[in-house]
């Protein structure tokens, strides 16, 4: 017993997460969903029907699938936390590691690792899809569209940002799960938070308020980092947008931790 309890808890939580049957499927669904959308989008674009001038943001379009497929990783994160309550595994867990902080840190750490790994896979897959499909549709260097490459600063920022985005929404889901302890409640809250705001923004007719919603809604702000063109038209800076999302995730996690510390494991 030389390892510090936090690391030990991380390993235990990783084992639990790994052996939960839904984990693999949901992570796979997230990656496959994003890459599938990337294939569909890049396959349907056509340089001949664009512009002139053609101002498509190919990086953003290639990575757009994460908007939809993030559902998988959010469900995974919520379930990883709330399933312990519904199956009462939480009681033996807390008996094995009576100090609660390491337990929950281990769980969040394991989820963060899983989330960013999933993010890295889906970014790699989407970019590969873009590289495979786009040149065939006329998006070649001769037309001003060099192949998507991580050597390009903006594309690299979008790729790294999307990986971080996936990790952050995972933590957001886990935080809400800790806070509400209930699958239905946490999942509804997470989905409403992510998908509700773009819909509300459509209704609001005041441009100032539309701008504010796009700035401070977790999904819209967080995915600003995918933009590689026409950055002035975005509502918030790329890293500032990811910062907004981290604030949401941090708030959910901190509130979840506080509640977890104080509450009985029911």
């Amino acid at each position, binding site marked *: 017993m030389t390892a510090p309890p936090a690391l030990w808890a991380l390993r235990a939580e990783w084992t639990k997460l790994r052996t939960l049957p839904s984990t693999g499927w949901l992570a796979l669904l997230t990656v496959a969903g994003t890459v599938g959308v990337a294939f569909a989008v890049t396959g349907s674009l056509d340089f001949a029907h664009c512009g002139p001038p053609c101002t498509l943001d190919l990086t953003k379009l290639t990575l757009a699938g994460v*908007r939809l497929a993030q559902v998988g990783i959010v469900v995974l994160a919520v379930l990883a936390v709330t399933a312990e309550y*519904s199956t009462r595994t939480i009681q033996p867990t807390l008996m094995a590691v009576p100090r609660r902080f390491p337990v929950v840190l281990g769980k969040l750490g394991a989820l963060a690792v899983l989330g960013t790994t999933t993010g890295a896979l889906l970014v790699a897959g989407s970019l590969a899809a873009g590289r495979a499909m786009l040149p065939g549709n006329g998006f070649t260097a001769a037309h001003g569209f060099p192949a998507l490459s991580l050597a390009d600063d903006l594309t690299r920022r979008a790729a790294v940002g999307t990986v971080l985005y996936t990790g952050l929404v995972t933590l957001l889901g886990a935080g809400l799960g800790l806070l509400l302890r209930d*699958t*239905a409640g946490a*999942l*509804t809250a997470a989905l409403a938070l992510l998908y509700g705001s773009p819909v509300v923004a459509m*209704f609001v*007719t005041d441009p100032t308020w539309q701008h504010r919603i796009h700035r401070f809604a977790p999904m819209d702000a967080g995915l600003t980092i995918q933009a590689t063109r026409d950055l002035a038209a975005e509502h918030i800076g790329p890293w500032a947008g990811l910062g907004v999302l981290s604030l949401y995730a941090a708030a959910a996690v901190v509130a979840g931790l506080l509640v977890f510390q104080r509450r009985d494991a029911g």
Partner: protein
Amino acid sequence: MTARESFPRLLLAEWTKLRSVRRWVVTLLAAAALTVGLSYLAASSSRTNINEHAAFVSGPHGDPVADDFYFVHQPVTGDTTLTVRVASLEPEPFGRDVDPELDRMTRLDDPSPFARPAAGIMLKDGTRPGSSYASLMLTAGQGVHLQWDFDADSRGSASSGARWLRLVRSGATITGYESADGTAWRKVGTATPKNLPSTVEVGFYVSSPAAVYTSRGGGSSSVGERPTSARAAFDNVRLSSEGTWHGETIGRGDRLGEKGGVRAGGRVTEAGGGYTVVGTGTVGPRPPDDDMVEIALVGVIAGLMALIAIGVLSATSEYRRGMIRTTFAATPRRGRVLAAKAIVLGATSFLVGLVGAVGSFALAVPALRERGFTTPAFPRPSLTDPPVLRALLLTAAFLAGVAVVGLAIGVLLRHTAAAITITVLLVLGPLIVGMILPGTSPRWLMYTTLAGGMATQRAKPPTVTLAEPWALIGPWAGIGAVAAWVALTLGLAWWQLRRRDA
């Protein structure tokens, strides 16, 4: 026990289950509160300056109207008869094109009888834009029409060539007649304008509505207009009294003319007893596309999320706790249990939705009126207007329908997280995809998915000029799509319940 006795008892049992879970009752109340709260917040953060553009004038009924045309007229007191022959009506060629942006957009083909170039005769309560009138006209491509007060229309013959027109005023009623040869007359209809003083302006006129161009997609929409003008020849002008004709542009015709490079305003020239009149503008209703009722009901999306959770949980929680075995032991006919659950959940959700919708309307409409949503562009919507009442009731039905779909998917999947995610995505997924898809392509998506139910919130007719995809379809089509989903998922759930173990 006969079946007739047991079904109400089953309903009561399901209702007891629903109301005795405190968390659900709180969620139901929260659904209504969230709806009202979000609606009020969104209304407080909305603003419009539409009335500052002066494109809107109030008609005799207070509705926003357009009243722009070229009028050759004289005052007449008391009963009168005016007869003319419209010899020709043709469009004037476009002037210099100043807005090439429009060529990249789609020209909107408005089928309304008020949206055609027209040449005809009119009786009008003075020359103030928006005042009462009755007019009998030959339109380009839609035959002869008798119209009055910007919303009433009765159709005459489908004639497109030269036509004789006659308006007869007798007290408060105006009768329109048409003829091919000036001898055999046929009645078109009777008009009863709201305000008809003893002295009215009588004469002949030409109008030609602007061509409207739209594009939507990528989360936004834009609308552009290009003015048009039409030229008509009138002869055989016969008025029952003596006077001199005076040509005048009514409304903002002059400004319309300058904008698009069309020769400014309208004009009249007389030659050999005939008149050639050039006019531009629209005489008819001009409702803005933005729908105040829809904007007041934004919060429904929040209430919807909570109701989906309740719907799914009312099915899956029974499986999780093994309660379903007790339920089916008590009532072995599983279809009846499902029906009872659906009825109880649907009715409860409908009531919650109705409270949320009416509360949103009551709070958000005054907030919107303080923020530019006022006359003339936006008359005050009232709870008793049929379109408003329809929007509120259908919105509640939409919420109830989605909750029942949640229940059915919960029965099918027996897994809370999966069922909630799928139901939420069935509503929000098509909305987000539809926002991005260009043109009218999201229409099929709205006709076939739960997202189409959002159309129930609109009190105005469908339009392609807004960014929100559900504005493309009508409210009845939207609720139809929801009803189809309810039937489909409940049918599948019923079939699964019968063949599967509890």
